[in-house]
């Protein structure tokens, strides 16, 4: 089933809620800590810090790749640092809404448009919640998807079918399938936490007129359709500027470029356009974001199965 885009890409990831970006917030780890559950010590008792250390240690032992930074090379550390910094810079957006238009270019003469609306709620200690509602094509009008993104494991997802008035829990296990027949795969648009990739810093390079970091990232999820991705992130604002996607065989499959960045609330950068070009098929999809709005006062109660069924 379609997976909603919960966030435009302004960081290393296309959307979603890389968990470490919540660092300074309540219940969130500091950006550079190795201990995900060790909160800001000033506000904690020694006991709870100790508890956090123990749990984090358990995590570190259970999943050495996830937290044991000691094992990372200098390039891997630097890549991870860049991803985390990009992530950190978007903490605190609270909630956003936007209108989306997707233009699918099937051939030089044939284009198809889709339109959707999305609302996203930042969650303090987990991935974001989001709802996407379809407006076009018209037979899908009112169809909506609620997603609870999780830092680790599969997301929770419900689909609302207006014709039957049915809210249906759906599997979020699909990663590599196309979203609405477009060149965007579910995983391109789905939540991508910091630790859903392993990073390697490659080089510095001009992208456009800006100096960028070039960082390779390898999906941790074996169900990913990609063997690796190469990302370009500008050094000034840590915004994602470009991603090259390599298929499972290691061949270049797609390139996404991001354009029209604007800063909202003097902090949060969002691109107006994301263009995905498939090098193997020649098709492309342009995803445009309009009417971005921040901190409109959305709450948990706006992201429930009941609220989903009240969409239109």
């Amino acid at each position, binding site marked *: 089933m379609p997976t909603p885009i919960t966030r435009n890409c302004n960081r290393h990831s296309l959307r979603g809620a890389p968990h470490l970006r919540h660092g300074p917030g309540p219940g969130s780890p500091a950006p550079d800590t190795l201990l995900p559950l060790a909160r800001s010590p000033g506000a904690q008792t020694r006991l709870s810090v100790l508890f956090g250390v123990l749990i984090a240690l358990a995590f570190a032992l259970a999943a050495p790749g996830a937290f044991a930074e000691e094992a990372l090379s200098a390039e891997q550390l630097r890549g991870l640092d860049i991803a985390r910094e990009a992530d950190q810079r978007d903490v605190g957006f609270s909630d956003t809404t936007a209108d989306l238009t997707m233009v699918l270019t099937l051939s030089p003469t044939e284009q198809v448009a889709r339109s959707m609306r999305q609302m996203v709620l930042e969650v303090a200690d987990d991935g974001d919640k989001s709802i996407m509602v379809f407006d076009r094509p018209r037979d899908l009008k009112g169809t909506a998807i609620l997603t609870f993104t999780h830092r680790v494991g599969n997301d*929770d997802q419900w689909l609302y079918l207006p014709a*039957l008035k049915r809210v249906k829990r759906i599997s979020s296990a699909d990663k590599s399938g*196309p979203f609405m*027949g477009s060149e965007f795969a579910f995983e391109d648009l789905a939540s991508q936490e910091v630790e859903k990739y392993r990073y390697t810093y490659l080089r510095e390079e001009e992208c456009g007129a800006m100096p960028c970091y070039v960082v390779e990232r390898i999906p941790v999820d074996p169900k990913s359709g990609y063997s690796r991705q190469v990302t370009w992130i500008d050094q000034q604002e840590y915004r994602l500027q470009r991603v090259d996607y390599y298929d499972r065989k290691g061949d270049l499959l797609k390139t996404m470029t991001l354009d029209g960045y604007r800063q909202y609330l003097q902090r949060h950068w969002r691109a107006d356009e994301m263009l995905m070009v498939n090098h193997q098929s020649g098709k492309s999809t342009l995803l445009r974001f309009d009417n*971005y709005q921040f901190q409109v006062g959305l709450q948990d109660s706006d992201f429930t199965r*009941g*609220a989903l069924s009240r969409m239109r």
Partner: protein
Amino acid sequence: MKKAFAIVVPLLLALLGNSVSGQPGAATAQQIKTLRLGITPDHTRVVFDLAQPGSYKLSTLSSPERLVIDFPPGTTGARAHNAVSVQGTPIARIRSGVQPDNSLRFVFDLRSATPARSFTLKPDQGRGNRLVIDLSNPATADQPTVEASTPTTATAQMRRPASITPQDATALPSPVATASGEWSGSLGVQSRVFFQDPAYRPQNRNDISVAFEPQYYIDWANGRQRFAFRPFMRYDAVDDERTHADIRELYWRLESGPWVIKAGIDVVFWGVTESQHLVDIINQTDLVENIDTEDKLGQPMFNLDYFSDWGTWQLYVLPYFRERTFPGEDGRLRTNPAVDTGDPLWESGDEQEHIDFALRWSHYIGDWDIGLAHFTGTSRAPLLVPSYTGFGTTLTPGASPPSSLRPLYQQIDQTSLDVQATKGAWLWKLEAIYNRNTLEDFFASVGGLEFTQYGIGGSAADLGWLVEYHYDERDINLQSTFQNDLFTGLRLTGNDIAGSRLLAGVIVDLDNGSSFGNIEAVRRLGEAWTLTVEARTFFNIDDEDPTLFFEQDDYIEFQLDRFF
């Protein structure tokens, strides 16, 4: 004093292409905090709340009529117009965009040429710097003058601000809820072709029908209130009973914190399984529409929902009963004799006025979705009682075949459970009911799984496998055909631009082998059309099985829908 600072711009009517700049020369980057619209009887006022005093440029363009406001390079706040309703104003649409020189442009698409004037206001009475544009309303003569006072500030006349301001977060809507009403809907043509000759007179070989289902929604109070209207009508060339109209939705709804109140007519779906909808009980089945029982008649209701961290509670008071629709004498897929819907039997003396109640609690815990419900009232599924007219009494069954079947609506108490566990690509589903009534209490359930393979054969398509087992304690009859039945099916989802999908399956009665095969396929044609094909077949039907009535009713149905 205030007006002394305002730069009043002359009327721009007929000054096509003309432009006026406020405070020329001061081109510092601006920040637009909010954009608001206010409507008075004679004009529409557009207010930009600005972070600081600064310059702007106003120009008009014609063919089509547009009003353009440019702010200096670097200006932020392009999305300030999101969720601003332009309903009832001369503005058709508001757009914004960053220009090549990095300036920020707002474009107001006007419905017709409209005189406009603009001025700026300095901070005053808790308001910050503002840019104000006044547009004359069309046909002001027809509108009553509600307010005659002269504005003393730029916002004094705003009786109906439709704005969304970040500072005013408590009053904010669901962003997808705009304040404007909207018509949409579909128009469809359907043709059914039956493979065999009809079993009963005066049935026909083929059928054609047309259905129209418009819908209207309007939200207001920042999306917290809604009015909905969705009528449905079908004209069937063959079956008079299938030519029918219904109001699927006609309700008013109010959301307030964790509470949602709804009064009127609506459709409610409960359940998780695919091959049978056992726990779904609020609405009556519109059986003439489709034997899959997924089409429902609108149910009058008063509904109260309460959302909490420990689940959602839903209370329904159902003051009026809807009778099930059945095919008429001319229709296929019917019993013999046909059901006489004009002459129902009721257990309750209140008949259709019996007030039914339902309460449901639902929640999700991790991978699990759970619903528990209780219903007390008139059974949606009637018993079908033979009627022996022509002999004057019903005392001599067997002397002659019954002339009709009469629906008998019992009073029931039904408790239900529905559960789904979502484990990666595996969905595990269970629905169960316990039904208490004056004739025979019974238990029934349906449960199974759905497993999906994604990207089969390197393509974009997904293939799902479905298995569901049906159990019903009752003896087999027309109301309960799923004593010990197995559904197996597959679902193909194309993930393509046409949104192609196909569901095919077979339900086999494990006791007597009677089988029902079903294929449903849909794809989009262009932007606004869909083509649906359904094929159904009854085969290997046992002589004692109630589906024997439909043994000759294998059919294929083509449906073309136009959405608007």
